[in-house]
């Protein structure tokens, strides 16, 4: 294949697979939640309920595309597109295996952080444009939560950057050939995982939606396709965070015997299942608890990790 054909195959391959996985996750999540909560989950449509995804899709596409008369139409339509686009674009830098992956940026890690930091606009603007009190509250919560957790999400990764000496994700994976970064950077791994759950608004950190108190939070006024974009954006975000944890802490595609792609997929799948288990097992904290936890526990932890890692790297560096 020519380089251009190879590049196009990578772009569309990754795009299609990510979207397919995100769609399939709707079913996987509900089945796994059912399993862990001792009930069935969707099992009627097709074998094992697999066609439930198709049924849900048809339903979502057929719904009326409703814009509330009191809403700010332009921003309301724009908001769900932001989250879907930035999470998909962030996938461009994920190194799936040698030769598989859309681009190889020397600032790949920063690119991921940049895209995930733009996702907050989707929720804040969606909540604001809906012009309803529950949406606005959800938007506020989303803005404050994502901004707070983003701070130490970036900080927790700097230990990895120091050990690998680069922002290039492929080089970071290669640097883990002898030891996965989860061992020397265990604190960073824990902080990043928690921040990742909060960034992707997964339960237990789904305060911006909080069905029990805010109806549906920032997307209360959304339905049909626009709601579908929020929904898909969330699942793509889940896959993205798991893929990033695998890349940064679990050795990416590295592993014995099996081909690299398989290792990457297996590790990511295990992490996704773990995230779903968290959703099945943990209750939702209060909002002030969430904020206090972030700023008073996670941020200092990330800073200490950063300082200690820096000290060790300097101490072990050959003297000039």
């Amino acid at each position: 294949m020519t380089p251009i054909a190879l590049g196009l195959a990578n772009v569309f391959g990754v795009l299609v697979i990510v979207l397919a996985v995100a769609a399939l996750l709707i079913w996987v999540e509900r089945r796994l939640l059912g399993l862990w909560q001792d009930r069935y989950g969707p099992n009627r449509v097709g074998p094992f309920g697999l066609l439930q995804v198709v049924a849900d899709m048809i339903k979502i596409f057929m719904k009326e595309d409703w814009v509330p008369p009191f809403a700010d139409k332009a921003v309301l339509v724009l908001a769900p597109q932001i989250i879907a686009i930035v999470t998909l674009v962030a996938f461009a830098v994920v190194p799936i295996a040698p030769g598989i992956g859309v681009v190889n940026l020397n600032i790949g890690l920063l690119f991921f952080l940049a895209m995930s930091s733009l996702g907050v606009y989707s929720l804040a603007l969606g909540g604001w444009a809906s012009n309803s009190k529950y949406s606005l509250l959800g938007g506020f919560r989303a803005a404050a939560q994502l901004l707070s957790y983003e701070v130490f999400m970036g900080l927790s990764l700097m230990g990895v950057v120091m050990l690998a000496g680069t922002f290039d994700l492929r080089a970071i994976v290669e640097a883990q050939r002898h030891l996965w970064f989860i061992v020397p950077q265990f604190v960073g791994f824990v902080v990043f995982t928690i921040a990742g759950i909060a960034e992707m608004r997964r339960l237990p950190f789904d305060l911006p939606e909080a069905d029990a108190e805010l109806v549906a939070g920032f997307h209360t006024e959304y339905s049909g396709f626009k709601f579908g974009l929020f929904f898909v954006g969330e699942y793509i975000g889940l896959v993205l965070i798991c893929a990033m944890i695998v890349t940064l802490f679990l050795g990416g595609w590295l592993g014995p015997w099996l081909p690299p792609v398989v290792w990457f997929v297996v590790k990511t799948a295990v992490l996704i299942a773990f995230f779903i288990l968290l959703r099945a097992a943990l209750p939702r904290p209060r909002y002030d608890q969430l904020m206090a936890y972030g700023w008073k526990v996670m941020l200092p932890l990330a800073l200490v990790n950063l300082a200690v890692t820096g000290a060790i790297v300097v101490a072990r560096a050959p003297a000039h």
Partner: protein
Amino acid sequence: MEYMFFIAGAIAIVATVRVVTAMHAVHALLYLIVSLLAVALVFFTLGAPFAAALEVIIYAGAIMVLFVFVMMMLNLGKADAERERSWLSPGMWIGPAVLAGLLLIELAWLVAQGAGAPAVRQSVEPKAVGVALFGNYVLGVELASMLLLAGLVGAYHVGRRRADETD
């Protein structure tokens, strides 16, 4: 890359003009975000990917979110858009337009003199940025950190709960 630079630059200019002329504060803010993203792309095409990433993370992804946060709380409506319109009377434009025009002439003259040599087409690695920041410009970094610390202390003071206040 050349075309990318000019397209991104044009988007930045148009978006910035719209920041000034937009009647609705939130819409103006959205244009400002677009403008920052376009500037990030300009940095990228000029061979400064690190600066581009930081522009997006810090300005577009954090500072502007705080702006949006405040705007959301203000509950701006039609009345505010009307008032904004009355403020933007054509007479208002004369002063800034003359000053900006002078700057434009100056810039055009400098470019014509050849002072604006073509941008260096050589990518600046993150490491080089770090070495420069903590080498040549360490004094500036320290001053900025002190300024930020002062801001932090000030914010803490404003937000502090006095002993006689309770929930």
